């Protein structure tokens, strides 16, 4: 009995192998080292699902003529060493033309070999401005604005919406990690340019629990706006609650990871007035790109009512991969990392159905974002501005 089952299994594997070998001449492989376990798993699982779904969607819709897109991913556990190993494993095993990577750390560690040896288009879960530098990372791109750009969008909004006479006062509240500190130098420069006064800079550990002193600092500085960076939930919720207890009128703002629906669910009524910048539209918005995404989800994952921002990040990255491949194929060029990179640089005013404002890649990133405000009754974020594109 058991042997028969094993034989069946082997037969199935063999068939799969033969099947894939036969179709090999038309396949284009997109690889991914995804943080499905580890500290970043909260986003990694959804990013992976988004990317996988979009590639399946593109295959169904036959977006790239004459090619079958294949998605090969592995878990990399949000550990740079293991992620580099996983990256190399996928490169050796499947020879992809584009790769997705789990972190800023991986992007930096793989850069020398990516530029010198692998030469594949590289997208990632990182919004670090460092990876968007075409000089040092010519094959990398950021799926949207960098953290610096997100700060730029928020600061432009603040400069246009002062809360009273005089210069708007803003506080930066960030973690002492790469993720937290990345945009701060740019943000200070930008604030000075826009005439926004930075009245406090508060640095904490990630997941700091006692935030009383930090809230007191805020109370002393009385900023109109306070921007968080480098956190997901904790300690944003604690700070907002503490500030409400002290009767502060400050508007709190977050970027990307901390403007997901989860934060409204966690804060409840205290989320009133919470704002933030999101590079992407939300899953419940009525724009063509999102509607298509929802339609696909209804079919592929019946019962799923909501997909977080990280899913949309994965989906959009999938769109970029597929679009560069489509353009390369349409131009009659072979699908290689170098040609994909050129196709990426040529993307100007690309309409993605409102998932993100008009997409133009400038220095391997899309410096566009939209400011949203929490609506506690509905438990959603609603647009507070139009898409803001940085010059």
């Amino acid at each position, binding site marked *: 009995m058991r042997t028969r089952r094993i034989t069946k299994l082997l037969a199935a594997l063999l068939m799969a192998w033969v099947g894939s070998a036969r179709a090999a001449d038309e396949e284009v492989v997109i690889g991914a080292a995804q943080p499905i376990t580890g500290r970043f798993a909260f986003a990694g699982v959804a990013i992976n699902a988004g990317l996988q779904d979009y590639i399946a969607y593109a295959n169904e819709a036959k977006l790239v003529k004459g090619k079958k897109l294949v998605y090969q991913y592995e878990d990399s556990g949000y550990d740079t060493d293991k992620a*580099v190993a996983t990256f190399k494993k996928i490169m050796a095993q499947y020879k992809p033309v584009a790769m997705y990577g789990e972190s800023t750390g991986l992007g930096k560690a793989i850069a020398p070999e990516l530029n010198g040896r692998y030469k594949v288009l590289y997208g990632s879960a990182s919004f670090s401005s460092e990876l968007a530098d075409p000089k040092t990372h010519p094959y990398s791109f950021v799926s949207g604005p960098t953290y610096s750009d997100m700060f730029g969008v928020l600061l432009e909004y603040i400069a246009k919406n002062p809360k009273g006479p005089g210069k708007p006062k803003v506080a930066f509240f960030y973690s002492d990690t*790469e993720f937290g500190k990345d945009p701060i130098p740019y943000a200070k420069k930008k604030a000075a340019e826009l005439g926004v006064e930075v009245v406090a800079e508060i640095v904490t550990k990630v997941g700091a629990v006692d935030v009383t002193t930090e809230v007191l600092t805020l109370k002393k500085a009385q900023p109109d706006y306070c921007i968080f960076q480098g956190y997901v939930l904790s300690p944003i919720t604690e700070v907002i609650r503490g500030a409400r207890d002290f009767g502060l009128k400050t508007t709190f703002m977050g970027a990307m990871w901390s403007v997901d629906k989860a934060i409204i669910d966690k804060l409840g009524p205290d989320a009133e007035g919470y704002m933030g910048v999101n590079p992407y539209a939300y899953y419940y918005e009525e724009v063509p790109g999102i509607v298509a995404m929802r339609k696909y989800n209804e079919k592929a994952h019946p019962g799923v009512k909501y997909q977080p921002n990280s899913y949309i990040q994965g989906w959009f990255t999938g769109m970029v991969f597929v679009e560069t491949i489509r353009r390369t194929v349409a131009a009659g060029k072979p699908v290689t990392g170098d040609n994909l990179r050129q196709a990426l640089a040529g993307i100007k005013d690309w309409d993605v159905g409102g998932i993100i404002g008009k997409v133009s890649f400038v220095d391997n990133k899309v410096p566009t974002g939209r400011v949203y405000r929490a609506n506690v009754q509905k438990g959603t974020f609603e647009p507070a501005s139009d898409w803001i594109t940085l010059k």
Partner: protein
Amino acid sequence: MLIGNFKETYSADEALFRTATVRAWMGVLAVGLLAFPFLVGDYLLYLANLVGVLAIGALGLNILTGFTGQISLGHAAFMGVGAYVAAILSTRFGLPFWLAVPAGGAGACLAGMVVGVPSLRIKGLYLAIATLAAQVIFEWIFTNWTGVTGGIRGLNVPPARLLGFAFDTDRRVYYLVFAVAAAHTYFASNLFRTRVGRAFIAVRDRDLSAELMGVNLFRTKILAFMISSYYAGIAGGLWVYFTKVVTPENFPLSLSIQYLTIIIVGGLGSIRGTLFGTVFVTMVPEMLKAATQSLRPFFPNAMSYLFPMRDIVFGAMIVAFLVFEPHGLAEMWNRTKRFFALWPFKK
């Protein structure tokens, strides 16, 4: 079957590898290690390099914790010191790697000396906490001394070069790493055949008795800290030339704990065990990953449960080790060897 081992000279008695059989097997191992990069793909080669670097660091921790009985939770920080010293010397001052890596070792050695000073007064868990403080302090320095360490973004390091030969591919780095690892394993094996090494063991077993026998406790403990962090520093220096980038997030507390796991699983106070432990801790999670990966086609929607299962299985394996084999993989190896010593004549 070997029934006796007759030695005629002192040098035969003192040899590290005493019998022809052992020497033959070591030769096979050496040839195997030399041929390894040509037999495997990128992925295994990269993991092998990782094992090599970690093994050097783990040897250092075993010298301190396994042989001298001083617990350290700051081993990753010493590795970080070595990495930063090597990276800074090579990027700012253009020092070649064969000077920068030993300088990293020396830098870590000095740091270890300072951190080791309290070890005369405090022992056991208290020392663990003191070294934990070192971990936190060094991590803070790596992150915030931006002018020197490059802050949170770290430093990018060019590949190592020796007489115009660049160690820029994994295969080349492999030979570099394994040459250094072999030399350090050899040194560690010999260390415990000297007066200093035996003093370490005496301090571990009963520090008061050791002192009564004439071992200078303070000097011995500091020396253990220095040698241990020197090893960590060398590992850090090599690591820089292996990954070509160094950031503070590369040396977290969890790495210190991983080092402790390696030496506990491998066998406290065993050089061979350290090497086994490093291979086990690095490779087993990867094997479990491959196993979950192969299950994926059958459970396409369960991957967010399947992948974390791996960590649970790995954790359970470590607990099982502690319960069933507290002396680690080294002891399992010895038992296997004893079994085969008289095989097939003894049941």
